[in-house]
């Protein structure tokens, strides 16, 4: 629960990767499909693998996280289908699934009770991350022993120095989802902090919604209400963190557009 600096660095790196977006996609064949996730239950202390099924083919999409809240990979959920996007990778199968590069997994909101498969380890080797599952990792401090190492506390970055610039912060989402996990909340906090530090005149919220073409040609569009829910959530968080509602201008982009699974905060001095 108590997270350290390394966790923040890892999270920051991940967010930068998200921000880089499609530009980092390179050679592999693009894969986009909706299917059931499948858990492969590895022998402890290895963490379980997550796979996703596209017809007869299984893809490896990631390992169960080792922190709570997770920092790097938001694992699929049985009882829900997932939208998987990535590029086919090279090399051996992992946990019985074909490797994917630049994989993004979105848990679709509606229930699908047919997605309910947990496979045994089946002799497959653990996935690429070899850190042990949380119960078997080293703890960060013992409440009754002051001599035990303590986790470093979160330190906010130093306030910006003038001249102040217009700054834009980008927040990505899972498909059809307005939920924000802890690592992404730091982006919103960053925007609110910048607004307050520079005594900004305005914060503009531009909210988009996505349109995805699957490998089989099917078009998926995010629910029209999702953009509104994303905006409502941002208003709740920003105003609680000190940005007056009167200084927030919200633009909802009604049209679903490819790559539109995000919003931006633009803070003007």
């Amino acid at each position, binding site marked *: *629960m*108590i*997270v350290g600096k390394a966790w923040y660095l890892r999270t920051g790196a991940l967010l930068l990767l998200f921000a880089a977006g499609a530009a980092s996609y390179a050679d592999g064949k693009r894969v986009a499909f909706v299917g059931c996730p499948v*858990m492969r*239950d590895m022998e*402890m202390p290895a*963490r*379980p693998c*997550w796979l996703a099924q596209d017809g007869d083919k299984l893809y490896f999409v990631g390992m*169960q*996280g080792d922190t*709570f*809240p*997770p920092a790097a*990979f*938001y*694992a*699929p*959920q*049985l*009882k*829900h289908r997932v939208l998987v996007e990535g590029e086919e990778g090279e090399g051996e199968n992992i946990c019985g699934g074909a490797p994917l590069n630049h994989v993004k997994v979105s*848990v679709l*909101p*509606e*229930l699908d009770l047919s997605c309910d498969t*947990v496979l045994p380890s089946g002799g497959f080797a653990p996935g690429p991350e070899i850190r042990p*599952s*949380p*119960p*078997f*990792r*080293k*703890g*960060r*401090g*013992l*409440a*009754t*022993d*002051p001599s*035990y190492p303590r986790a470093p*506390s*979160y330190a906010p970055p130093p306030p910006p120095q003038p001249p102040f610039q217009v700054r834009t912060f980008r927040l990505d989402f899972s498909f059809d989802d*307005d*939920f*924000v*996990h*802890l690592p992404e*909340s730091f982006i919103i*906090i960053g925007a609110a902090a910048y607004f307050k530090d520079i005594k900004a005149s305005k914060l503009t919220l531009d909210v988009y919604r996505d349109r995805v073409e699957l490998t089989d040609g099917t078009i998926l569009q995010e629910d029209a*209400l999702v953009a509104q*829910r994303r905006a409502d*959530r941002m208003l*709740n*968080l920003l105003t*609680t*963190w000190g940005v007056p509602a009167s200084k927030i201008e919200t633009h909802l982009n009604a049209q679903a557009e490819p790559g539109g699974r995000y919003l931006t905060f633009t803070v003007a001095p």
Partner: protein
Amino acid sequence: MPKYGPLRRRPGGPSFLKLYVAAAIFSCAAGQAGNTSAADYTASWETSGRLEAFTAYDDPTGKIGVLLADGPVITKNHPFFRPSGPSGRSCATCHVPENAMGLSTDRVRAGWKEFGDKDPVFAMIDGSNCPNLPQNDESSHSLLLSRGVFRISLPWPPRDPHGKPIQPEFDIEVVRDPTGCNTDRKLGLKSADPHISVYRRPRIIANLKYILNFPNDYKFGFNVKTAFAQPGAPDGQGVYSMNLMADARFLALDEQHEGAIKDHMPGAPKLSAEDMRRLVSFTRQIYAAQVEDKTAGNLIEAGGPSGLGPYNLAKADIGFSGEAIDTPVFQRFDQWRAKGDPETASDAARFRASVARGQDLFITKTFLVRDVAGINHLGVGNPAKRACALCHNAQMTGHDLAPGWMNIGTANWPWAKNDYDLPLFKLTCRQDVPAQPYLGRIIYTNDPGRALVSGRCSEIGMITMQQFRGLAARAPYFSNGSAKTLREVVDFYDRRFQIGYTEQEKQDMVNFLSVL
């Protein structure tokens, strides 16, 4: 009406033997605390009019210890102990030192046997199944007598902190109403002032520094369970933990105290500012934990496990996660591990070894945690292969450091028992809102939990988990009192998550929980 509520007979009274044993315990504990004297010990606050700095009370498996870190209090005219209003209740009616500052059904039943409905605990407002029932009839109090639950009447639709109605994301229907309160013309859902009655256990008013404080990393106020803002304290010093109450409808201690007086002590005058200050400062410094076990012996002896007993609770730091093998939730039990031949070991040594194994299971026995709203949808995956300590992670208390709202199914289909004595509601969520992640949009429940306060479909059935301290002194368990014993708690989890405990493991878990 007795001035301080009924005085309860103690079986045998505080005998010299008991005093001797307790004094022996106390002398060890005082060794840990180092700043109290033997004169602080007594066995009865009700007869002496004084609650000592440290007291040990008999409970079914040993003794529960209650420590007042700021020293003894005179109970006469103290706002915690002073009856107020026509019901004759005080805070101590439902938060009893002998029950780890909670309330056991043993005590409730003894009260009925001795005083009937004249015992203030049975006040008609919430100590009966419904105020419209004949109050002198035992069956009218069956839920309190059998489950230890009080009626909680909440407005519908819910109101925000300013009293403005919230537009709920779901409709609610009463499917079954065994108490009659939810369909009552004056008290129910269709009344002129619509209310919903649910039935919940009182929580313990002890060890609150752990419950009220929020981990440093979340101090900016982000609720990881809902992804909405965590309310900030009015003084700007951090945010509320939201872990104080089952549904987090009150966030600060003074709010909870004021709400409890208004809801559970009808007609009681509002507390003066000075009394509120005394009440808050009193409740903040109470520590309660088991101090003796009939088989294991003294739990707080010098050199014993550092996670046991109220003195260690008073001393330890807050905000540490215990989901790790070397920094476990209830600290380390190395000195209790089995040594030598178990056949020749004493009963105490064997019991202690069992407790140590129970702690190990709590931390390292992994299983598939699945379909729990409030944990599995937060990125860990559904299922997540983790141990008890994934959710029960706070060192020293075993609650969730994040706001501990979860729906593990103790009160709803398909996992709850068929609790025919409790009301059953059918909740139907609107199509344009996010569904409950694993139950969808039509949910049958005995208690919608947090959703009765927030109005959100995704929070249906979420109940803030409780701390694990003083369990032996305050059965039954779960917010609806559905587990009569610790064994039933373990059996529920074993069935719910298909853990596959062996019989020995179940006993180890029960023994472990019983000494906390």
